[in-house]
């Protein structure tokens, strides 16, 4: 790549306001004595782009909140784990015994007293004062049932349904869209087959891009009878809908059709 000479560098930096005081003085001096430099500078000032105001309307979708697990199920897994541990510990500490009626507590690790069953052959000993009752498995199971019930029967709200139905490119995989192009202006040239919908099945995992290339190819074939047709396919979409804007230009024809993609 050919580098810029000093004059070009000075002109560019002056134009972009990228000069220090000395550089600026040098550029202004050159402008005063060199009409060509001044002319060039004036022409180039017209090439400065004014930023357009373009708003990205889906900003709210980008926003994040800290992941706070508000699911009712958040208690179920820990509670089940605790219940399982308790059951295991009871089983380990009291092999071959039936659950007694008087001792349902559990000592914490480090406690010396471990027997609190009234099974035959064992001596019933009162739980030591320092022993702590951690939890009652029966209560946990009750909680679990209570929490799970509404989850199973919960219907998605309208808002959630909309989110779930967003048409993302990858979600078009293995789905089909129909493109029906009707060009009344060309009826005299077409055969009936050309008015039929073009069915485009999305190929494998590569998804929309591959699907899109295929669509373009089929449209090209569709228009193949024309001399040097130019097909311009633009994909656009908002509010979860995707459209293809297909522009055909051939001979004297310049037709644009916007086709809503129906996802099946």
């Amino acid at each position, binding site marked *: 790549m050919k580098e810029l000479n000093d004059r070009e560098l000075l002109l*560019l930096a002056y134009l972009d306001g990228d000069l220090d005081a000395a550089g600026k003085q040098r550029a202004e001096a050159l402008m005063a004595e060199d009409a060509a430099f001044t002319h060039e500078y004036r022409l180039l000032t017209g090439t400065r*782009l004014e*930023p357009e105001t373009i708003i990205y309307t889906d900003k709210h979708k980008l*926003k994040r909140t800290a992941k706070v697990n508000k699911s009712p199920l958040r208690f179920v897994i820990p509670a089940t784990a605790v219940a399982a541990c308790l059951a295991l510990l009871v089983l380990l500490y009291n092999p071959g015994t039936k659950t007694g009626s008087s001792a349902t507590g559990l000592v914490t690790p480090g406690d010396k007293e471990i027997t609190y069953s009234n099974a035959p052959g064992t001596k019933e000993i009162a739980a030591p004062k320092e022993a702590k009752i951690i939890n009652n498995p029966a209560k946990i199971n009750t909680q679990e049932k209570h929490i799970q019930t509404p989850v199973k029967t919960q219907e998605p709200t309208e808002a959630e349904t909309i989110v779930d139905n967003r048409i993302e490119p990858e979600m078009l995989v293995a789905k089909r869209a129909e493109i029906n192009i009707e060009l009344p202006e060309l009826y005299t040239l077409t055969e009936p087959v050309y008015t039929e919908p073009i069915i485009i099945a999305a190929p494998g995992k590569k998804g929309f891009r591959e699907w899109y290339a295929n669509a373009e190819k089929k449209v090209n074939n569709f228009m193949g009878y024309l001399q040097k047709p*130019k097909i311009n396919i633009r*994909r656009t979409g908002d509010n979860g809908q995707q459209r293809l804007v297909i522009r055909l230009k051939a001979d004297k024809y310049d037709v644009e059709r916007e086709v809503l993609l129906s996802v099946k």
Partner: protein
Amino acid sequence: MTEQQYNQCVDLYADGLYRFILKNLRDEFEAGNIVQNTFEKLWMKVSETRFETAKSYLFKIAYNNMIDVIRQNKRYVQIEEGFHDEAVEMGEYKGLKEALNIGLERLPEKQRTVLLLRDYEGYSYEEIAEIASLSMEQVKVYIYRARMALKEFIGNPEVLL
């Protein structure tokens, strides 16, 4: 960067990022996808990214993503460019601003990118070099060539009709 700063980045930079990609690709849907992917990547690295450097990070990610899309859609882009050539021949636009926009679309991708980063986003040559993975000298050459090309383009009297 905190979650609050991340959301601040969305407010501050999402529009600019979208505009930058849209101006290059001229595809609203694709531009929206790239913006979403870019912020997704930022969120994944939110704890490792400083708020002060987030803007450059976002533009760099978006730029790389855009280059991938351009490569994948090369044929499609070429077809579109053909149309724009004809639009120019037909002189379908009016005014300096529109002429500049059309001229901008006709610029080679690298020239267009660096010029947009310079004029729209106000990045320094050094920052542009970092975002577009170019040397400072290359950035200057591209900007200079882009300005010269636009100058030639708007200098055509037919364009200004």
